[in-house]
């Protein structure tokens, strides 16, 4: 077991009205899982994912990573985000000022790796994702699919236990979309990399080994 979220509650105060988004959602991720979360727009998928990723704190409920209960507000949350978790967002969120390679190096540098070690690892990963000819390009010189692959490489840089992705292909055309899904599947099969992916794409969700639907604030396994 890599990650376990139990009975997660989360609500937002919107002017005078309280929106209860998550009402006891639970999820368990095991090594090698490729989990997809689907659900209607605005049902709280992103909220759930950010809570799993220690980017947001739940109102109630417990989060366990690698057997340890973690408070996302604690100082250790940074270390877990850096070492054990990788993120891919719908928009690519690459740093515009930095080349593809430099972007991938960031998590390694944050971990404390030397620049040469980080560079070596970044090149390996970008090569694996078929971007060895794009190392020194800046994000605005890359196609959407390429940018998303760089994001994927960056998420994988520190060999995380789990990669969290929020609609990673939501912004891509079908061709690029299936290219990225292909990569994800390969990583899962070849390297046993675990994923939790929020997606609207039911076809893609079919490739997952577990599918959950979020509705009325709880997660139900549907496949």
């Amino acid at each position: 077991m890599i990650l376990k979220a139990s009975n997660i509650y989360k609500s937002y105060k919107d002017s005078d009205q309280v929106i209860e988004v998550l009402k006891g959602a639970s999820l368990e991720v095991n090594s090698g899982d490729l989990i997809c979360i689907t659900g209607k727009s605005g049902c709280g998928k992103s909220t759930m994912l950010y809570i799993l990723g220690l980017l947001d704190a739940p109102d109630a409920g417990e989060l366990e990573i690698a057997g340890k209960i973690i408070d996302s507000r604690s100082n250790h949350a940074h270390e877990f985000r850096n070492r054990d978790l990788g993120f891919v967002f719908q928009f690519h969120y690459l740093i515009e000022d930095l080349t593809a390679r430099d972007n991938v190096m960031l998590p390694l540098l944050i971990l404390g790796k030397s620049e040469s070690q980080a560079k070596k690892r970044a090149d390996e990963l970008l090569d694996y994702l078929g971007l060895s000819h794009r190392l020194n390009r800046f994000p605005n010189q890359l196609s959407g699919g390429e940018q998303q692959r760089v994001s994927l490489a960056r998420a994988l840089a520190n060999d995380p236990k789990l990669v969290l992705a929020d609609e990673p292909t939501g912004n891509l055309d079908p061709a690029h979309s299936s290219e990225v899904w292909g990569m994800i599947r390969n990583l899962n099969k070849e390297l046993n990399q675990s994923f939790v992916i929020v997606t609207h794409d039911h076809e893609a969700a079919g490739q997952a080994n577990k599918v959950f639907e979020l509705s009325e604030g709880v997660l139900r396994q549907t496949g």
Partner: protein
Amino acid sequence: MNQLEAFFLKHYIKTPRRNIFKFSFVFMVLGIALSVGILSAGLNLFQGYESNLKKLLLDSFAHINISPIYRDSIDEYSSDEILSIIFQKDGVSSALPLLQSQLMAQVGGKVRAANLMGFKDNANSYYRDYISQGKQEIASGEIIVGHYLAEELALSIGDNLTLMYPRLDQISAFGLHSVTGSFEIVGIYRCGYYENDRSIVICDIDEARDLLNLPIGYTKIHVKLDNPDKAPYYGRDLAQELNNRFTVIPWNYYAESLLRLVKMEKWLIFILFSFLVLIAGINVISAVGTIILDKTDEIAILHTLGAKPKSIKRLFAYRVGIVAVIAVIIGQIFGLLLSWLVEKQGIYKLKGDVYFIDTLTFELSFTNLLVVFFTSTVLIFLCIMIPLKQIQKMQVMDIVRRNY
């Protein structure tokens, strides 16, 4: 500095056009450079004033003044005795017996107070360094007059000047009796110390003695030292060796408090002008605020990747810090230029009767350069840190969501 910070710092330096020479920094740099320039110029000029004043005081005054206690003058015999004691000491550069007294200088209907001096040995006398016009030698019937005194009395070389010494011991029903003597001006004395330049008259010692109606002897012995700062020690020793028969007064007694005051004013000016840098700091605060807004995505990414908020803050601090340090250095160069211009300009002159000296000069001191650099840098860095507090409060969630 951790790996991430080092990496970004290198990145900023390697691609300055993308990160450092940006338009959003222009006003910040301008503000810093201007305020630091004024601060440095103020300090340079005040430093110049302080050094100038001290140099003038020490050059044109005796470092140690020896005068009689019980009588009007030091007789020839005592004078020789004192000189021999003085010259036994190391570090004494000269000792000159002289006659000195206040009297009146008159020409036509104008009368001014003057300070008459007659040196035993004109050839060794230090007034010779300050003759701005005319000759240094004085023969009988000739006189050297301070620059401003001559100016006030509208005199120049070749004119005649009458000295009057009122005899207070001979007041009668007919009024005050005074001894007068007429002299031809042969030289103009100008040392730069206003008080001296508007009062000094120097004539032959024997003629001075006649005018003042004094017996053979001297009213003072002026001692100069190689190191004037040691005057109090020499003074104490001398007083003891002379069995306290004479008053021995080091220059510090008169002038130290003045110099201290000037020094204090210098630092006061410094503190005052430092506030200008703080005002420039307001620009810095808004510039940093703008960059943070501009870079929220970057902050969110780094946060997501697990960088500590402290680290993220430092990245911004370095980036703006580099710009600020460059601006401070530009400001210091500008300050140097400004002080140079002030020295060279002829429009504004110091009022000698208020400030003792009438010329503005600047002095570049290494200490002052460092003090300005560090104070400005620290002040600016404090201003940089203020808006960076926002970073800790930022909700990554909100940033990421904003793009949906």
